[in-house]
């Protein structure tokens, strides 16, 4: 533990950071530039692994593990699955329509990022941003400490998040359910038939001619 904390200062730490940061950025660039989605996914996994390292260098051990388990593990596997299901290469990499606006959007995003970066740069003298990092507590970022925080101060949001995940699971199921289409078709046909019988009640074979009775008959 102590070993890890000391890594945040000094030359070795800087080199480690540079390598990890470089991997992260390169992975990210690969993610958004590759034509083949499989390559993009693999690059993203690489990015996440590198990021997990960066997290570790920030003494965020729990999050680093989570990053690998949840992101690089679960989420990315999901992505891989979907890529496999769909199995389609992109024909053109870049969207065709509205390029002016999209380009302007990218420029605008760059401007905002640049502005933020310059704030950071201009504030580099402040201890918060530019100062050497103080020694964190022994249990900073450990599973135990983060867990304690989650289960005490953030109990309610934690439970809410669990509910959110549940809803997401159910939602995912509902949205991707394949029977839905058939259901819809059936439903539409049924309604059509029903409206037709209502408009021409006499066409109901042997049925009551009164419209009220019709409605009831049609639904049971």
């Amino acid at each position, binding site marked *: 533990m102590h070993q890890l904390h000391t890594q945040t200062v000094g030359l070795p730490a800087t080199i480690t950071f540079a390598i990890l940061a470089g991997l992260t950025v390169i992975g990210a660039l690969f993610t958004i530039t590759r034509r083949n989605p499989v390559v993009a996914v693999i690059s993203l996994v690489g990015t996440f692994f590198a990021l997990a390292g960066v997290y570790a260098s920030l003494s965020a051990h729990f999050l680093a593990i989570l990053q690998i388990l949840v992101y690089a593990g679960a989420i990315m596997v999901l992505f891989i699955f979907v890529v496999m299901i769909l199995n389609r290469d992109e024909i053109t990499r870049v969207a065709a329509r*509205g390029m002016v606006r*999209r380009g302007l959007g990218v420029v605008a995003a760059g401007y905002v990022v640049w*502005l933020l970066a310059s704030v950071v740069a*201009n504030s580099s003298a402040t201890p918060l941003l530019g100062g050497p990092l103080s020694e964190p507590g022994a249990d900073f970022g450990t599973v135990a400490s983060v867990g304690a925080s989650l289960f005490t101060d953030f109990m309610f949001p934690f439970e809410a998040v669990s509910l959110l995940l549940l809803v997401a699971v159910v939602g995912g199921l509902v949205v991707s359910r394949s029977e839905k289409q058939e259901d819809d078709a059936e439903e539409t046909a049924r309604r059509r038939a029903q409206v037709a019988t209502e408009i021409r009640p006499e066409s109901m074979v042997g049925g009551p001619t009164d419209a009220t009775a019709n409605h009831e008959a049609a639904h049971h």
Partner: protein
Amino acid sequence: MSFSLRLIPLLPFAGATVLLLFGRAFSRQWVHLIACLAIGTAFLVSADAFFTALPAAHESGGLHDIVWAWFASGDLKVDLAFRMDALSGVMCLIITFIGTLIHIYSAGYMSHEKDYARFFAYLNLFCGAMLILVLGDSLPVMFVGWEGVGLCSYLLIGFWYGQTANANAGKKAFITNRIGDFGFLLGMFLLFSATNTLDMPGINAAAKAGAAGLTEISWMGQPVAFWAALFLFVGAAGKSAQIPLYVWLPDAMAGPTPVSALIHAATMVTAGVYMVARLGALYLLSPAAMAIVALVGAATAIFAAIIGFAQNDFKKVLAYSTVSQLGFMFAGVGTGAFGSGVFHLYTHAFFKAGLFLCAGSVMHAMSGSGDITKMGGLGRKIPWTHRVFFVCWLAICGVPIFSGFFSKDAIVAGAFATHVFGESLSWVGPVVGTVLLLAALCTSFYMSRLYFLVFSGECRADHETQHHIHESPIEMVGPLVVLAVGAGLGGLIGFPGGLFGHEEWNLLGHWLEPVVGPELHIPHAVEVTVMAASTAVAFVGIFLARAFFGGGYREPAHQFARSMPGFVALVRDKFRVDELYNFFIVRPLRFVSRGLFVIVDRIVIDKAMVEVPAAIVGVFGRAARWFQAGDAQRYLATFAIGVAAIFYLATRPPAPDAFKVTIQGTAVDVDARGVAGTAGRTLLYDFDFEADGTVDRKGSSPTAHFVYEGTGTYVIRVTIKDPRWGTSTRLEQKVRIQ
């Protein structure tokens, strides 16, 4: 004094309700038993009220019965209350008595009808409404009955709804009545506005006292009372078929004949006369209104009588005769002879009901046809009907001793003797009297024509019809005989005893005196002259008709028709008044409505006012659609641009549009503070007073002092920097140093 007067209208209503709800389940016997029982009991209760309870309460305004407070608001208080005095009592008796007879008659007449229960339900409903009309203590309650009878008339005229003509006639009756009701409503409002009450005793009391609200001069120099009376008379004219609203009554003959007898001869159509008599005090306040009532009455009397000359439908002749007789009644009440008007109402109820029921009996015999050109010689084949018709005919012609003679005579004599019109309108009385005498002549003529064409000579019907002619059953003949007795002798109740020095012989006049005031005093000479004249007129009419039509169409009749074909045709077409109304009122109204619908609703409002603004908005909408293409990425790009714009604006250092420069000689003071100060940000200011690129003053102070070396025009350049965001704003301003 209180008496359960509510029972009187309630009984027929109960009968109607039972028959309407369950009538179809009952057998015919039960149906007419219930109906006759309902109205018959109502007659007994009315008689009880009139003969036993009323005399005691006669002087104090009669019997009074408050059911409940109907509605009230502010000064307006209307009770659902009934009042029976002599006038409404007489009316009640007429309605329930003749009503009962006609119910019994209908049991025979309608015996082949499919919708038996519905017919009797309507009859009962009508009687109830009519009783409310006459018993109502206030104008709104009267109005309930007023509209109620209109409704029943509508329903009964259109009883055989399968024929469009019947339905049309019913609708015409209702709508024409509604025109009258419009006047009735306005009259009510005027009276309320003037007297603050709608109770008829209250109004009459105010009128007798000459209340300021009523006598004050209003529009067109007439007192309020005039307008109130006039508007109410519009209502009366609608209900009682007076010029110009009489057109519905002849059409109303489309209904079953007992209905014509009950509603369109004996009771409902006399409601207007009743109302004028009831509000007599109000009318007496305005001689002009009285004159209008009398003149309209007289004009209607003669006009309708002339139309009666050329009608060939049995019931149509009687219908115009009714219109004409109602004109007599209005002339009576209009000349202040309220008692005489009501007297004629009463005798007319008997003889006209008798005539109509005879018509029903004749048409019954003639297989439903009412065409008098196809009749003749029926006297031998249906003797009882003939006898009854004979009596009633003499009564309406005004042959002495028969009832019509006394009542008609009283009206004519009253017209000559009246003083209610005052000096300036004194011509009205004699004119009305003369016109009425002429109308009586016409009446005598066309009624005799009817009699001769139907009952004398040879039968002109085809063989098939002749074969079927038969006398009506007892339940029809019985009521006829009773009515004939009434028509023959009923006039004695209003015997002009004054002629023999015995005022008290005039029983009706005596009864009505507390309500409508004492009978007009008619000088002997006038009375005797008028009697002689009207007797002469009756006989002249009869003999003239006999010369034309005795035993069938005679040569003089043909000769007359040939000599004036245009006039005869005009009369046969009822002076084409219906066509006139249709052309000038109904069709324009429809045309204008349709035009308004198309132009105002469809074009002006929906197109110009709604769709044009909508189209303008639509143009903007289509322009804005470029932003809303359904492509989330482009939305996001727009969003990013927006964020950048906000960042750009928010991070610019706050600066004024122009900084403040104070010049004193060659020294300047510059203040570059923003409008809202520094907004909590640390800012750096670079002042370059000569705009030469060298910063003259710098620091965090927004103000600076500088002394120029010489005069001239300089440009001051201030650069405001925000060190945190690394942004800056540059402002420049020219100064002239003198």
